[in-house]
Structure formats: structure tokens, C-alpha cells
């Protein structure tokens, strides 16, 4: 099975990065194995669990099934680039509520929640169910994630007022 490798210029967390990989390699493995950004996690490889969620041009995508070739000309944001200083309203809220247990799924949870919060600044419980039910947590942090998203919405609102 001959495969070819191409060289791509990608924008990852606001920096340009050149990589040479096979075009069908999922972005997940490019991030983890080639670039060394291990904050994005492998959970299933089949878009069932959401652990690998990243932003591709602002949309939450499952990086385990999204090939490198689809990222050309687009902006990739990972958990490491969610906020410059780790001070996204969601990161504040997650810490306040002590959301994580093992923490392994939380990068994906945060990346999904970030898109929800941007699109819908005051999500209801139903909105949270709709946006977050693709992200599995086996430790069972769901109630705290819900609480933290509501808290983050409040933080975002008060920051908007201040600025």
C-alpha cells in the first residue's frame, strides 16, 4: 500500500508550522506525534467520545477523524491555545467548580463548551445537553460541567460589561 507524504503549512494556535505527513493522517496524530502537542487526547478514534475535540476555523471538530489535508488554509486551535494565559472564562469556571476528576476528557469538554459559549452566551440546560452530549466522561463529571458552563457564561457576561 504505497502512501505519499506532502508538506503542509498549517496555522496551529496562532503560529505557522510546516509539517511533512501523509494527507490522510488525522489532525489528532499530527498534533500529538509529529508536533508534540499532547493536550488533545485520543479516546476512540471514531468520533464517538469527543476527547480529541479541537477548533478548526472556530468550529468544534473531532480531530481523530479529520485529516490533515482538511486543515490547509484554516486555523487550528487546541486546548494549549484556547487562551493565551489559561484564563478563558471556562478555564476559570472549571477551576472554581473543581470539575475534572482524572481530567483526560476535559480538553475535549472545554473545546466543545467554548464553541457553545461563543455561539450562545446564555445557554440553557437543554442547550448544554445538545452541545455536550457528544463528549463522554467516564469519571462522571457531567453535573459539574453543566454548573461550570453556567458560571462561565456569567463570567463572560461580566467581563464584557467591564471592557
Amino acid at each position, binding site marked *: 500500500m504505497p502512501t505519499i507524504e506532502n508538506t503542509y503549512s498549517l496555522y496551529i494556535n496562532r503560529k505557522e508550522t510546516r509539517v511533512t505527513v501523509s494527507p490522510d493522517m488525522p489532525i489528532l496524530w499530527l498534533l500529538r506525534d509529529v*508536533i508534540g502537542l499532547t*493536550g488533545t*487526547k*485520543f479516546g476512540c478514534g471514531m468520533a464517538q467520545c469527543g476527547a480529541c475535540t479541537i477548533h478548526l476555523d472556530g468550529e468544534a471538530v473531532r480531530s481523530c477523524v479529520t485529516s490533515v489535508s482538511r486543515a490547509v488554509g484554516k486555523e487550528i486551535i487546541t486546548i494549549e491555545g484556547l487562551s493565551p494565559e489559561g484564563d478563558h472564562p471556562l478555564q476559570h469556571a*472549571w477551576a472554581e467548580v473543581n470539575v475534572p476528576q*482524572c481530567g483526560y476528557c476535559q480538553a475535549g469538554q472545554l473545546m466543545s463548551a467554548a464553541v457553545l459559549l461563543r455561539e450562545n452566551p446564555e445557554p440553557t440546560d437543554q442547550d448544554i445537553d445538545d452541545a455536550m452530549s457528544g463528549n463522554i*466522561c*467516564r*469519571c*462522571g463529571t457531567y453535573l459539574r460541567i453543566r454548573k461550570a458552563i453556567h458560571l462561565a457564561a456569567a463570567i463572560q457576561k461580566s467581563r464584557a460589561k467591564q471592557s
Partner: protein
Amino acid sequence: MKRRYFIRLSTFTAGAWLLTDLVPANLLASGKPVDPGFSPDPLLKISETGKVTIFMVKQEMGQNVITSLPLLIAEELEVDLRDITIQSLPYEAAKSGNYTTWASGSITGSWMHLRKVGATAKAMLITAAATRWKVPVDLCKAQGGRVINTRTNQILYYKDLVKEASTLTPPDNVTLKDIKDFKLVGQKAPKTNISSILTGRYAYTMDVKLPRMLYAALVRCPVYSGKVVSWDSSALNGLSGFVKVVQVTQMNEALNRNAVAVIATNTWAALQGQRLLKVKWDYALNTVSDTPSLNDQFKKELSTATPAQVYGKEKKGPFKPIQHPEVYEATYEIPYMGHAAMEPMNCTAWYKDGKFEIWGGFQAPMFINSVLPKLFNIDRSDISVNLMPMGGSFGRKEKIDGVAEAMQIAKAVDAPVQVIYSRIDDLQNDFYRHASYHHLSAVSNPGQISQWRHQLGIATFPGKEISGPWHTFGGVMDDLCYTTGDYQSAFYPVESPIPLGSWRSISFSPNVFAVESFIDELAVHNHTDPITFRFNILDVAGSKDNQRLKNVLSKCADQIGWWQEPAKGRFRGVACCIYGHSSSIVAHAMEISVSKDKLVKIHRCVAAVDCGLVIDPDGLKAQVEGSLAWALSGIFKNEITVSNGMVDQQSFADYQVLRTNEMPPFEIILIPGADNPGGGGEPAVPSVGPALCNAIFAATGFRIRELPIKKHGFRLV
């Protein structure tokens, strides 16, 4: 203390702008001198710059020992948790047992020792300060990382006392703080690893990156003890990143499977190669090789065979069925279960100059030293282990199958190699919670149970060995809390076609389900309220734990409003559990409604939890919340079935787990009913299932006697 060396991921990667937390690496030793600081115990060091480091000997996998255990040292040492750096204690094979992290035992087993570590260091720092000030030690007190002279209000920071304190001999006896003076213990504590988790820097076992590291994905024999006949790797030629194929052998019957490994320069290539490799197997099937024949065998054993073990007043001798016209009987079938932690199994090994270095997450790393040196024909000292946090384990990572595989593969390549499991690999090559079959019979009236029999058909592995953790806890032997008069339980082992291991709450999960469902059945049979019935058969005079249980049940009942009728269309169920070996007691009550098309909605769920003295209340609540999600997944949805010796389930599509829209609202009451702390990770799992099924019976009249619940057409909304 052993020297330790760390690497940063960024050193080796193309991007070189990465920021994971430090990863240990002995083989990369560069020989930097280590600041000895003040270290009266291997678990604590205060450096001359004032940095306080606490070393973790217990393994972190989500249960938050990384916060609750340092809290105990910090409390006695009088320092703030936020001023502490936490590292894992370098692994020493000679003390391997200390690192074992299981059975909800981290706090119960080490809380006094950790307090003494903190108190001893504090006493020595105070002595050093008193000596310098030339005043008696009772005039000095410790507070906020410094010693205060209470007469003159002079202060000395701990860092300024490091040199003198290091010259002192640790006192044999130190006074611990009075529990009522605790400032940190019992309060909400921030998770000590939270900021690195939230920014993607927290390095789990799969995040290890080493120079020239290779990746291996294995095609394992789908039948546990099957053998490799041959393989064809021609389809892998030309696969970008493909390195080579290596055979992996089953080293002993309880350790790992026969397999063929595809090695590549990245995970994606290894996973593609795994799909392209063709392997021929000799399956060597067991007599019992699928789920229906296992259940048939349970029935057959219970009806004809003499039990392998009988427990009762007479601990030997035959099983005596109840001969009474009013005997009430029920049978419960409980399936195999998988773990499906979010981080799939993985392990990294490096073979260099005749020695192995391992990176991984292990609940019981002692098995690496007790099992593997013999099999690899090396000395114990030829394996060094770097313990790293796990992305969930729930019992799965007690096993060291991944190490046996990674070491074999590492020997075949001249580079470190990471064995990665796909989700399918993880679910199909698990060590499962055993399947069981329970026949209960009893003679009872509203006030008492006069005769009780519990026959358990249990899947066993390896062979027909009955194991405490997997089979005999949870109210099936001397830990049944209810008074039952003439009592017998009997065990009928059937050799399992798939391998078994510990699963969060071990044998409590199936056994408490059977017992608490049956108690509910007896209450209904006797037209008695289920909580009143439990009170009637609970001898509180004879046992402090029974007294605690009664209190827990009462508080649970009060919280859900048990003694008032629920709203129209809503129904309630209750169940409870004394989690004996970690001294914790839990009751769950559920209020549900069930629609005509069998949609189950949990409107309210209450847990009353007596874990004794609570160290980290927010962390404990997190464990109780997690236990609810874990147990609901299991009881409602999950089962592992076997066909022709092979596990049927492959992924989260056919092993569906609880998602956020299914998580019910939850009220937790903590009731400190003892002076010592109990365990928190497992005790709140077992009573969830029977409480829900008892509520479903109250709502529908349909008794769930076969799990998971979804088999009967119910869905959770």
C-alpha cells in the same frame, strides 16, 4: 532519595514550543546535583529556597489523592496547599507495595502516617527556631510556613531553618493536631493539578514522548488463550511510517494474549498497519465459550452440583435448600462488564544496555517486579519504572499486560516504543468484571427473616479460583448486615472464557444488587415499606456499623421525603450498602417516573454517605457523583457478551456509556458517623443499581432480574 531526571517534550519535537509538565526519565540521566534540603521523610522536602515538595506514593487516576493526601501533610505542617509542589515519589522496587492504589484504601491506609510526616517536620522546624532564639519550644508555634516566637513576635520562615532542622534527629513521638483545630482538612480544597489539566499540560501515560520513540499497535488473539499460526504483512509494504512486525507471546495464562505487533514511527501508521496485517489463529476454545452456554452452565451447577464453597453457621458440609411451604425465591443474572476508561491502555518501554525502563500508569506496580523479571530472565533491578497519572482506571490498570507486551517489543527495536490500544483493543482485551448468577430464597414475615439462602454461580479466572475481591464481598458471607436466622451461601464457580479483573466496587456491585433487590422483593411480599422492613431486620444493638446504616437510611429517607407520598406518577426506590473493607456506608433513594413506552426519568436521586471523618468534602462528593454515573452506565446500559470465546462489543457504539443528557439531578448528604476516615472511590457504586430497579418495580410492577436494564426495553431520559 534516589536521583531523578526529567525531560521536556519540547526537546525532541519538531515544533519545540511545547509545554507538557515534566516527564521522568532515568535512562537520560545527566548527573545534575540535587539540593538535599530538609527531608525528614521521603514524602516531604523543604528546600533552602523555601519550596515545599510533597511526594506522592499513591497513584492518581481521578480519585484526587493528589489533593487529599498532600492536604494531610500540609495541615500538620502549617503550610497552604497552594504553596506546595507535588511530585510522584520515584518508584523503588524494594518498597513496591507502598505504591499500590486500590480498594478505596489510600486515605484509610495512610492518613495517620501523612499527618505524622507533617507534624514531625513541624516539630523539628520549631526546635531549630527555639534553639536559635534560645527559648523553650513551647514559646514557639508554627503558622503559614514560618515559626513564630509568641513572646517577642519574631518570625523565622521555614526556608531559613532548613539547614539547622536537617541536623536534628526526628523525634519518635509527635503530637498531632486536635481534629477540631483542622484548618484545611474538612474544607473545599482546590485540585492541586487543575491548572495543568485545564491548559493541556498534564502528562498522562500516553503523553510520554522520548527521542526516536516508536509506536506499536497489536493484533491480539480474539480468543484469550489462542495461538498465532502465521501472519501476512505484505499489505504493509510502502505504508508511510511502517517499521517492522514483531510477534508477542503469551508469557503466562493470567498475563497477556498472543499477538503480532505492528511497529511504526507514529500512532496513525501503527493503527493503519494493525488494520492491514492478516493473522491466522489457532483458537483453542474452552468448553464454555459464549454467554448463553455460561448461563446454562450456571443453572446446571446450581441445580445439580455440590458447591465449591459453602458459608454459614456450619462452614463446611452440603448446601441445604430451604424446605418450607412459604419459601420465596428469585434469580438474578448479572453480566460481564468492561472498564472503558477514557484513556485507552498504553505503555512505553525502552530496552537499553540490558535494562528496561517503563513509563505507564499502574494501580499495583509491584506486579511488574514480582512477575516480569522471571519471565524475561533478568534481575529485579534491571527494570526501572516511571509512574504517571492515568486517564481513568477503575480497576483495569491493576493489570500489567501492557508492560509484558511493551517489553517484548522494546527488545526487538533499538528505540523506546509505546504500545497503544485503540478503543476496540481496549474494550476487547479488557480484564472484565465477572458475570454471575444469583438464586436467593428466604422465609420471612414483616418483622424478620428466619431462613436465607444465597447461591452464586460465578465466572472465575484463571481456573476455578474463588477470589475475595471478585466474588465474596457484598453481603454474601459474613458481611450481610441483615439478621437472617438460618443462613447459608454457596459458591459455584464456572471457568470464564474471558479474563477477569477488578472493577470499581469489585464483588459488591453484583452481590449488593442481588441482595438489595431481593430485600425489596421480600418487603413487597410482606406488604411492608422497604425502609421499615430494613429497620425491622437490622440488629442495631449488635453492631456499630448497623447503627450507622440505620442512620444513613433515615437521613436518606428524610431527604427524599420518603414518609410522604410522592407526586402523582412518581415512584421511589431505595437500597443501601455497608462497604466493609473501607468502613463507608451509603444509601441511595431515587424518585422516578416511567412512561408508557418505558422511558425512565430520574427526577431526584439522593445519596446519604457516611465515610466517617471527611478529609476533602468536595473531592468526596466528586467521587459520589462519579459513582452514580459509573453505576448508572453499568446497570442501565452495559454488558459484555461472548461469542465463540470472543468479546462481542467493540466501541462506544455497542458499549454505550452514560452521557450528560442522561445524568440525573443529584443530592448528596455527608454524614460523618465515625472518627476515622473511610474510603470514597467505590462505596457509593453498589446501591445505585438496586435503588433504581426497586423504583422501576414501584412504578411498573416489573422486577428487573436480568441486567442491564435496557434489555427489557427501558430507556433512560
